[in-house]
């Protein structure tokens, strides 16, 4: 369907099966989910947090964002936020952005579906993702 080969990130640690990284939140409590999300954002040039997977998006906004990335032939990592509500909570706490999807490039929040669509239509998105 596309030459884009998303590399889904499927190893966000969930409570109970994950070793807690050393970093702690301001409250002093270890927060492995938040740490894993922050690390994923840092480690992937382009990463999309979405509902569902690129192959099977579970929301129209996520589907549209994936379609745009595929139209640009942009390789991207993808994280499905649906399996655990804490992924979305921690992601929004990090990004100060309440909705899904959320697209990050080079560690920065590009935006949600509306901004991604606007930037795609204006031609800015390809540059932002390079």
């Amino acid at each position, binding site marked *: 369907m596309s030459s884009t080969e998303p590399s889904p990130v499927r190893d966000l640690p969930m409570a109970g099966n994950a070793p807690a990284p050393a970093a702690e939140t301001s409250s002093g409590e270890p927060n492995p989910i938040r740490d894993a999300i922050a690390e994923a954002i840092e480690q992937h040039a382009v990463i999309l947090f979405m509902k569902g997977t690129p192959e099977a998006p579970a929301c129209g906004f996520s589907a549209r964002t994936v379609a745009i990335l595929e139209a640009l032939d942009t390789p991207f990592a993808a994280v499905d936020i649906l399996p655990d509500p804490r992924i979305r909570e921690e992601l929004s706490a990090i990004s100060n*952005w*309440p909705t*899904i999807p959320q697209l990050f490039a080079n560690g920065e929040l590009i935006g*949600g579906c*509306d901004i991604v669509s*606007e930037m795609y239509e204006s031609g*800015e998105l390809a540059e932002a993702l390079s």
Partner: protein
Amino acid sequence: MPSPEDIKQRIEVALAGAHAEVEDTTGGGDHFRATVTAPAFEGRSRVEQHRLVYEVFGAEIGGAIHALSLKTQTPLKTPIQ
């Protein structure tokens, strides 16, 4: 269930000088699309502009308001390109 008029008024009350056009995209009272023009957007990135609008609704975004699609612009310009 908020109406488009509720959403419009809350945005216009919260953001000084703002003008909002809001439609209910599904008729279900939980998916909205808003075009917001506000002086406060001047000099801010799109992400910052959208945050200003999202902040009006706090935890209602993703809760009672399942989706709020946004297009933001400053009064003196066409949508930021």
